[in-house]
């Protein structure tokens, strides 16, 4: 995924809150944002896969980012949302976030690659850091986010 190499262009991100941290999700992968709804559990799958939901007649799997990032389990509030991501190959998947904050536009040149620190497992979910007027924002590497986790 080379969304960061678009030259001289701006990239739009949706800023979401997971735990205490804020993350940016590239808007071009987002199909939809829906409120939390009943999730049908699917037995015998990885623990971070919560189950499936009905999105206008389509059955879409939903995963918990918090569980995948080894944070505490999701606490559902009125701000909880499911962000439906769409990939060309794998199709759609929903990820649960604690809150959706805003949409920001960052110049592509203002996005830096992260320097990897192999000790920190969470950093692997990031593809870069964007600089905004209000500070820094971590940008999620969606391919890593949805990839199957080993020994899960």
């Amino acid at each position, binding site marked *: 995924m080379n969304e960061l190499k678009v030259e001289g262009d701006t990239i739009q991100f949706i800023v979401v809150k997971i735990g205490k941290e804020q993350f940016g999700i590239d808007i071009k992968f987002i199909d939809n944002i829906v409120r939390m709804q*009943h999730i*049908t*559990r*699917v*037995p*015998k*799958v*990885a623990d971070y*896969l919560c*189950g*499936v*939901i*009905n999105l206008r*007649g*389509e*059955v*879409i*799997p939903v*995963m918990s980012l918090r569980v995948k990032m080894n944070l505490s389990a999701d606490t559902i509030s009125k701000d909880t949302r499911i962000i439906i991501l769409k990939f060309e*190959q*794998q*199709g*759609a*998947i929903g990820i649960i976030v604690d809150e959706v904050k805003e949409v920001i536009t960052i110049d592509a040149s203002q996005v830096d690659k992260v320097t990897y620190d192999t000790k920190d497992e969470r950093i692997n979910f990031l593809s870069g850091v964007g600089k905004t007027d209000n500070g820094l924002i971590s940008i999620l590497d969606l391919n890593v986010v*949805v990839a199957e986790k080993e020994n899960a």
Partner: protein
Amino acid sequence: MDVSQYLEIFLDETKEHLQNLNTLILDLEQNSEDMNTINEIFRAAHSLKGMAGTMGYKRMQNLTHDMENVFSEVRNGNVKVKANMIDILFQCLDALEGYLANIQENSDEGTEDNEPLIKALNDTLKGQDAVPAPAKEKAPVKATEAKVAETKTAEAKPVKETISKDPKNWKKMNLDEASKEALSDYVKAGKNAYGVTVFVQESCILKAARAFLVFKALEPIGEIVVSEPSTQDIEDEKFDLDFSLFFVTEKSIDTVLAAIKNVSEIREAIGEPVEHSQLQITIEAEDEEIVESTEETGVVKEADTAVMVSNQDNGAGKQEKKNTVSKPIVNRTVRVDIEKLDVLMNLVSELIIAKNSLVSAAGTEGVSNNTGVNEQIEYLESVTTNLHESVMKVRMVPIESVVNKFPRMIRDLSKKLNKKMELYMTGEETELDRTVVDEIGDPLMHLLRNSADHGLESAALRKERGKPAVGSIFLDAYQDGNNVVIEVRDDGNGIDVNIVKNKAIERGIITVEQAENMPDKDIISLLFLPSFSTAKAVTDVSGRGVGLDVVRSKIEALSGEVEVRTKLGVGSTFTIRLPLTLAIIQALMVTVGGEKYAISLNSIQTIEDISLADIKTVQAKEVINLRGIVIPLIRLNSVLDIESAKQESESLIVVIVKKADKLAGIVVDDLMGQQEIVIKSLGKFISKSKIISGATILGDGEVALILDTNSLF
């Protein structure tokens, strides 16, 4: 020239012709004297050649041309059909299929010239010439040929005459006032008006397409004012070998003619500026011309068919009759992209989901006391059910398209294995969902090969056992309720349980003790394990041990099942059972621990109320004795990792499910009832869950999962 828009049609039709040829040549092998078959073969080969030529596939055309030569000699009685000739012909068909595959892949026929084949074809012609028999036969043939030639020249003359006398057919065109006015208007405006007559080559197959290309070539440089026959008739191919048109342009006549001649298979195009006189012809003169032109086209037509007929067949009368008879039988069908049908099916699915939610909404709220609403909902239900059935039927295709290639395959196998065998097929017209039909070919082929290779004994052994020398393989298909059953049966050796047992022990699949306690049935089902083959030698045909497990996994992927029955020395039967449709099924809804699950009604045998006292334990597993059969119990809540929400009670609700001839009892909390459900995929992210085969959306919008009961065994 761009022919890509015809590529699809070409591929479809070529496939049909090739299949047709395969069947016909098989017939010919059985009955080498049948004139009808030979004629039909000739026609199919001829159409193939024409089509390949039109599309510009030269190599394909060359090969078919030489095949056609052979057939025409056969038809004329100059050459007798021989076994080696049939072989060569089959090789040719294979080569043609190779071309076709290339074309399909990269719209190019490839570079294989198949020269050895062409040479072999020509050799059969030459070689047969030397056979003494034809000496007698040749004379009459020559005579008929001469006669044909005579009629040809005699009848062709008028054609030539009309052409040479006045090929400028446009002059005979019957212009109506409006077109005349339009023409003269254009002329006044300083443009050039030309009358043009285009002659298409006699060998041209897609005349309408050629005409269309001519029109297309002309469009950018000017305007076609009027054509004879009308554009509609030309599109419908209602013209002979020529058509005329009036054309207005700023370009010179040479440019126009060059543009037309650029289209291939156009023999000649002639044109001249329109004379003023033609635009102002008196009415009487016009009338005269009409008479003349109709007369002449009449002659041309007659002569033309005569020539064509004499070209194609000596028995001209018979041929003509056949042609006229066969026309109206043409199926009234439409070729539809399968994707469009999928879309339609999806929409029907949506509709059924919407209907289900209406039903549940009407059931809950105060609406239900309004009988009018209920009536309408019932009406809607019957409409959606009918709609679903109709759409399903549209997607159904006879398995014929798949099984048709098998007689040829068995023939080849028979030669290769040096065993005499015959394939008998019934129920080719049995229909299955298109997606299933596409997938069923390989498994069936594996089974047939198995029967041919492992099943049927060698000729000597058959004789010893008092069986007929020619082995029989049967392929029977029929519909059985909501299933389609396909049986592959042979009268061969059957499966030797002991050989299978020893092999399994040798491979370490089972231990000696296990083997002793195993019923024969279970041992035979070992054959379906990956990499298990009993053939002593790995042959070209089978024996790599990939056959049966591929068969099973393919069939199970289609939600079907395979079983084997066999009797040593008598033969074996493989039975494939497939669901009619995959997208919408009748299901029983059950609840376990507050979650809803669907179980396909197809796999359910009965539903039982089992008292706790009746549950026995065998080898630490719960079983029940149901009417004399011991059935293992499966607690669904523990399989699904969930707490049962049911209070302890005296009895359990047990759904008895079957897989092939095995039964199991699934313990559920409660039954919700039967429902028509639409199967939805869980998507690529949740593919690991083996016990869930899909999901469905219930009337209230909730997602329920569909249990794959086969995985519970």
